[in-house]
């Protein structure tokens, strides 16, 4: 097997340049690459285009990079949790492209699967369809959507081995598996990095071929947005 281990987040993101296009896994704050985001903050890289389902909250996740104005453009499906985001957007400081969540997921998947375009019914007749080709199949109208790929994909998994095989946990899987496939360079941070041969090949969610760098993250906060309990 091929060893993809790097020391830490700083080493993993060392060559991400200004104006790079990034994908960041996660749904809300669940399954986000906390260590990589912290390293980007520290590194101060600017002008980023970030593809991520959400934009974090004011003081966590991608929200941290918004605060420091490191993000030029967000490509997301839902950004409702972030007041700073809404402020920058309404003031025109931030470019935003909103994409239906399933279309976003599939555009990323096709980016990692060598499929440059596909047809989906989501968004037909809405703002999302403006300027896009439509076509009928079996009497139903579909939009043509194109693949998305990144310069760097930053994903977070539960366990990983040094050859880059990844296993996610719970709903922290979400966008991480597709984003792992769609990066020119894919960086994986994991809660537990194990030796090659420790993971059951049947249980791998992301095969190591997609992952270029992997490290064991530290100090995961795993912040909860809506702590909802039953009495």
């Amino acid at each position, binding site marked *: 097997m091929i060893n993809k281990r790097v020391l830490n987040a700083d080493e993993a993101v060392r060559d991400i340049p200004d104006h790079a296009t990034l994908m960041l896994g996660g749904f809300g704050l*669940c399954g986000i690459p906390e260590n990589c985001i912290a390293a980007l903050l520290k590194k101060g890289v600017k002008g980023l285009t970030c593809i991520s389902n959400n934009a974090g909250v004011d003081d966590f996740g991608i929200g941290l990079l918004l605060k420091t104005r490191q993000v030029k453009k967000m490509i997301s499906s839902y950004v409702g949790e972030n007041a700073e985001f809404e402020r920058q957007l309404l003031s025109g400081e931030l470019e935003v492209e909103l994409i239906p*969540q399933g279309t976003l997921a599939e555009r990323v998947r096709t980016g990692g699967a060598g499929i440059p375009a596909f047809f989906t019914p989501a*968004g037909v007749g809405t703002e999302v369809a403006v300027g896009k080709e439509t076509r009928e199949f079996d009497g139903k109208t579909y939009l043509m959507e194109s693949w998305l790929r990144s310069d760097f994909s930053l994903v977070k998994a539960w366990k990983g081995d040094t050859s880059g095989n990844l296993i996610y946990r719970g709903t922290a899987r979400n966008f991480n598996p*597709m984003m792992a496939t769609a990066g020119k360079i894919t960086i994986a941070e994991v809660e537990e990095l194990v030796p090659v041969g420790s993971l059951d090949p049947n249980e791998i969610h992301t095969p190591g071929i997609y992952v270029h760098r992997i490290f064991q993250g530290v100090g995961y906060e795993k912040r909860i947005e809506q702590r909802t*309990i039953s009495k």
Partner: protein
Amino acid sequence: MLDKIGIAKRIAQEVRDGMYINLGIGIPTLVANYIPKNINVVLQSENGLLGIGPFPKDDQVDADLINAGKQTITMMPGSALFSSAESFGMIRSGKVDLTILGAMEVSENGDIANWKVPGKMVKGMGGAMDLVASAKHIIVAMQHCSKEGASKLLKNCSLPITGLRCVKRIVSDMAVLDVVPGVGFKLLERAPGVSTEEIKNATEGKLLIDGNIPEMTLN
């Protein structure tokens, strides 16, 4: 007039044994609490889970287990976890039997608007556009009128729409109505204490009132 819990209770009556159901954020999420115990359904969370269980006890909270509203949840026995691509694959291919979601406006031909108020609110559509474009059956939970008293059941939506001709049934605080293609809103039931006349006045779109409209029964 129904409160949020009343709307959720009434929608729960629409649920049939064996259904796979996607519940939107807000009132739809409450529906889960009122599904009769003898009915077996599976709740889908579009962020990657089939088999949403009750909210966790304090000591069960797991940051890696949330629903699409970012609330902490539990899993039922027999749950399955998957990626967002897989999740919307099953949504687009019509495997989800029933979608329940909120709306800001619905038009008499079934168009729905629930994702944007130009110049005011930019939250994004999330999974709503995918859901309404593909669901076999869509029930909308909504307020019949705005706080200012303006009807939200319209001839045409004034807000940017989420999907065309997709809503099948509406449960509002005032009534249960079906969207009948080419006809308009067909009134099926009145909320307790609400008259047909009041519903008529609160509905801008074409309203079909066929015979005597019963008052709904809630447990």
